[in-house]
C-alpha cells in the first residue's frame, strides 16, 4: 500500500524549546495507528506538527497528493493540507451557538472560495458525514446544548465533511463515558474499513490494543517503539516508558493483549478466596494459573525448573514459585520448600505433567499432600500411561494417589469447578 504520510527526522516544539526529536515513521494507506505515550511525551505536539500548524510548517512531514506523489507540508497551502488531513482535536468546546448543521458545513471550508456558496458536491459531503456519524437528527440543535457523545460525533462529522484521506484524532475518547468511547472507536473502525487512514492519540492502552493494528509509543519526544500491537505492548516497554509494572495477558474474548496494573493485582489478592498449589511444568499449568489467579485464588506452584514455560508465566503473574535450576532434577531442598507451600494450600492440583526420574519427587509431594488431608485434584487430559517415562512407576504412584482419596479431572474446566466447590465447602 502506498505511503500516505511520511515523517522524516522531525524536530519540533514551541518558541525554541524542542519537544519532538528525531521522529521518523511512515503511515500507509488504510492503516489504523495509535500514538501512545505518557503525558508530556509529545503526542499532541506531534499531531500539530503533522497538521502543519506549528510554524514554520515542517519540511520533515510529507503527505501523498495522489498523482503528484509525496509533497512536503512546507510547500502546501493550509487549504491543500486540510483537504487531505482532517483532525479531531482534544476537548474542543463550542462557545458559540451554531447549529450542528452549520458546524458540519464548516468542514467544507478548504474546498470553498470566499464568496462561493456550497455546491451539490459540498452538500453531498455534508449529508454523508452527518449520516455516517448519525448526527442528521441533530442538524438544527445548537452545539452548545449537546451531550459529550453528541458533541464528539458532530466534530467527527465536521472532520469527515473535509473528505480527508487521513483522519487524525487527539484523544477522541477522553472525557467520554464507556459507551461513548466504544461508539467513537466503532465509528473509527467503520471509517477505516471504508479506506480512511486513521491515526489516533489514545490514553487507554487496552482500547488501543483492541482497535489498532499498529502502535507508535513515544517517550520524551522520540519514538520509543513502533510496530504491531504485540511488539509494542510488552511489560518491558510499558515499564520503560510509563514507569509502571504491568501484567500483559491475552484478553479471553478478543485475544488481544490486555494490560492490568500489578498494583491492581496485589490489591485483588487481599480478597483471596483460598490457597491453591499447582504441581505442573512444560506449560501444563499455565491456563490453570491464569484462571485461578484471575478468579482471586492465592496460587503457588512448584517445583519448576527456571525458564520452564510455566515458570515464566508464574513469574509474570507474580505467583510464588519453588524453582530449581534449569534442566536439573528436583533437589531435596526444593522438595522441602514445595511441601512448605503445599502445607499452606487447601487444594493441590497435579497437572498432567510427563513424569521422569527428574521430577518424580513432585508426585511424592502430591502423596504427602493427600496424607496431610489436602484436597488433591489430578488433571488427566492425557492419561498417565502416555506420560510415564519410568516404566510404570509413575502410573503406580498415580493409582496410589487415587486410592488415598485424590480426585480426578479431565479438563481445566473441571478442575476449576471442583476447586470452587471444594472451597465453598471449606469456607462453609
Amino acid at each position, binding site marked *: 500500500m502506498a505511503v500516505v504520510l511520511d515523517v522524516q527526522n522531525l524536530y519540533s516544539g514551541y518558541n525554541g524549546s524542542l519537544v519532538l526529536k528525531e521522529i521518523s515513521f511512515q503511515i500507509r494507506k488504510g492503516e489504523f495507528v495509535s500514538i501512545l505515550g505518557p503525558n508530556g511525551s509529545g503526542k499532541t505536539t506531534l499531531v500539530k506538527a503533522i497538521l502543519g500548524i506549528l510554524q514554520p510548517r515542517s519540511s520533515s512531514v510529507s503527505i501523498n497528493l495522489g498523482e503528484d506523489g509525496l509533497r512536503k507540508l512546507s510547500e502546501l497551502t493550509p487549504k491543500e493540507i486540510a483537504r487531505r488531513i482532517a483532525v479531531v482535536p482534544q476537548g474542543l468546546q463550542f462557545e458559540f451557538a*451554531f447549529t450542528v448543521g452549520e458546524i458540519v458545513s464548516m468542514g467544507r471550508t478548504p474546498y470553498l472560495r470566499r464568496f462561493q456558496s456550497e455546491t451539490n458536491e459540498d452538500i453531498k459531503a455534508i449529508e454523508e458525514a452527518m449520516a455516517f456519524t448519525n448526527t442528521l437528527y441533530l442538524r438544527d440543535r445548537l452545539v452548545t446544548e449537546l451531550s459529550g457523545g453528541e458533541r464528539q460525533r458532530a466534530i467527527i462529522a465536521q472532520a469527515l465533511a473535509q473528505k480527508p484521506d487521513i483522519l487524525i484524532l487527539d484523544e477522541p475518547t477522553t472525557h467520554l463515558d464507556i459507551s461513548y468511547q466504544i461508539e467513537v472507536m466503532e465509528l473509527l473502525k467503520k471509517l477505516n474499513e471504508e479506506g480512511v487512514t486513521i491515526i489516533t492519540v489514545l490514553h487507554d492502552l487496552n482500547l488501543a490494543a483492541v482497535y489498532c493494528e499498529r502502535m507508535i509509543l513515544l517517550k520524551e519526544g522520540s519514538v520509543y517503539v513502533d510496530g504491531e500491537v504485540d511488539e509494542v505492548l510488552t511489560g518491558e516497554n510499558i515499564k520503560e516508558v510509563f514507569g509502571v509494572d504491568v501484567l500483559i495477558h491475552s484478553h479471553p474474548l478478543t485475544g488481544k493483549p490486555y494490560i492490568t496494573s500489578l498494583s491492581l493485582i496485589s490489591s485483588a489478592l487481599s480478597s483471596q478466596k483460598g490457597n491453591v498449589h499447582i504441581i505442573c511444568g512444560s506449560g501444563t499449568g499455565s491456563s490453570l494459573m491464569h484462571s485461578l489467579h484471575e478468579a482471586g485464588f492465592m496460587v503457588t506452584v512448584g517445583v519448576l525448573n527456571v525458564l520452564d514455560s510455566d515458570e515464566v508465566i508464574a513469574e509474570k503473574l507474580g505467583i510464588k514459585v519453588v524453582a530449581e535450576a534449569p534442566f536439573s532434577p528436583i533437589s531435596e531442598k526444593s522438595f522441602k520448600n514445595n511441601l512448605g507451600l503445599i502445607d499452606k494450600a487447601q487444594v493441590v492440583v497435579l497437572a498432567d505433567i510427563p513424569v521422569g526420574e527428574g521430577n518424580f519427587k513432585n508426585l511424592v509431594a502430591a502423596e504427602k499432600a493427600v496424607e496431610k488431608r489436602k484436597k488433591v485434584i489430578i488433571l488427566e487430559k492425557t492419561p498417565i500411561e502416555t506420560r510415564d517415562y519410568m516404566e510404570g512407576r509413575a502410573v503406580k504412584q498415580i493409582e496410589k494417589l487415587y486410592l488415598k482419596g485424590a480426585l480426578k479431572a479431565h479438563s481445566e474446566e473441571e478442575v476449576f469447578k471442583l476447586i470452587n466447590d471444594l472451597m465453598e465447602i471449606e469456607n462453609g
Partner: protein
Amino acid sequence: MERIRSFKDKSFIIFLILLLGFVVIWAASVGAVSIPLKTTARIFLSRVFGLSFLFGKASWSETYEIILLKIRFPRVILAVLVGAALSVSGVIFQGIFKNPMADPYIIGVSSGAALGATLAFVAFSGFGVFGFSLIPILAFVGAVLTTLLVYNLARVGSRVSVSTLLLSGIAVGSFLAALTAFLMIFGTKDLHQIFLWLMGSFSAKNWDHVKVMFPFVIFGLPLAFFYSRELNVLLLGEERAQHLGVDTERLKRTLIIAASLLAASAVAVSGIIGFVGLIIPHMVRLITGPSHKKLILASTLFGASFMVVADLLSRTLMAPLEIPIGIITSLFGAPFFMYLLKRSKKKIF
C-alpha cells in the same frame, strides 16, 4: 429573549431593509420645518436615487427640496453610513477577539482619532487645507497610525496574538489619552468644541462628508461579508480554523485592517460615537445567531437605522440645542440593551 431561530432569515432582513427605509424618510421629514413623509419620500427617490421619472415634474415646494438636499439628507445618509460602518467593525472585532467586550475602538482607533482631532483644534484651530477641515484628516491619520502601532507592538514575526493585541491596545490607548488631556490644557478656548467633538455629532455635515465616508463603506462592508465564512470558522478558535485550512494570520491581518479603516473613517467624519459598535452586534446576534453572513447583513441594516434614530433624537429632543449623539446612543441604547439582557435567558455570546 429566546433566540428566534424559526424566524425566517430572509423575512428578518426584509424587515430591516423596510425599517431602514422608513427611518431615513421619517428622520428627514422631522425638524424645524416639518415636511410631509410622502413629499420627503418622493424627493428622496427622485433626487438621491435619481428616480425622478417616477414622479414626472417636481410637484413639491422648492424650499422642502433645498432643506432636504442641502441639510437633512446628507446628515441622515451619513448617519446610515457611520452606523453601518461602526456596527460591522464591531462584529469583526468581536469575531476576531472572540470577546463580547470588543468594539470598533478596541485597538486604539478612538484614542488615536481623539489625539489627532485635539491636535487640529489646539495647534491649527481647526484650519482647513484645500477647503477641508483639518479635524477629520488628523483624526483619521491618528486613528490609522495608532492601529498600526498597536498591531506592530503585538506582532511577533508574522503572528499576532489576540490577547497581546488587546493589551497593547489598552496601553497605547491610555498613553494617547494622557497626551490628549495634556494638549487640552493648552487649548482652553477650544475645550468646549473638543469636548463636543469627542462625544460625536452629525451636526453641519454635508455631501462632502458622505463622499469621504462612502468608499470605505462600499469596500469595507462587502469585504466583511466576503469573509463571513472564515469569521465563523475563527469562532471555533484559531487552531481549529487552521485545521480547516484557514490561514488565520492573513485572515486576522485583513480583517483588522478592514475593521480599523471602517471605524477610522466613521470617527473622522462624526467624532467618537460610543456604544453602537459594541451593542448592535449583540442585539442582532440575539436573533440571527452567531453565523456571520446573517449577522453582518443584519448589523449593517440595524446599525444604520439605530444611528439615524439616535441622530433624530439628538437634534429634536432639546431643539434647537443639539445633544451630542454619543450621549443619545448610550442614554437610550444602554437601557434597551439592559432590558434585552435581562429578558434573555441564554448566554448571548
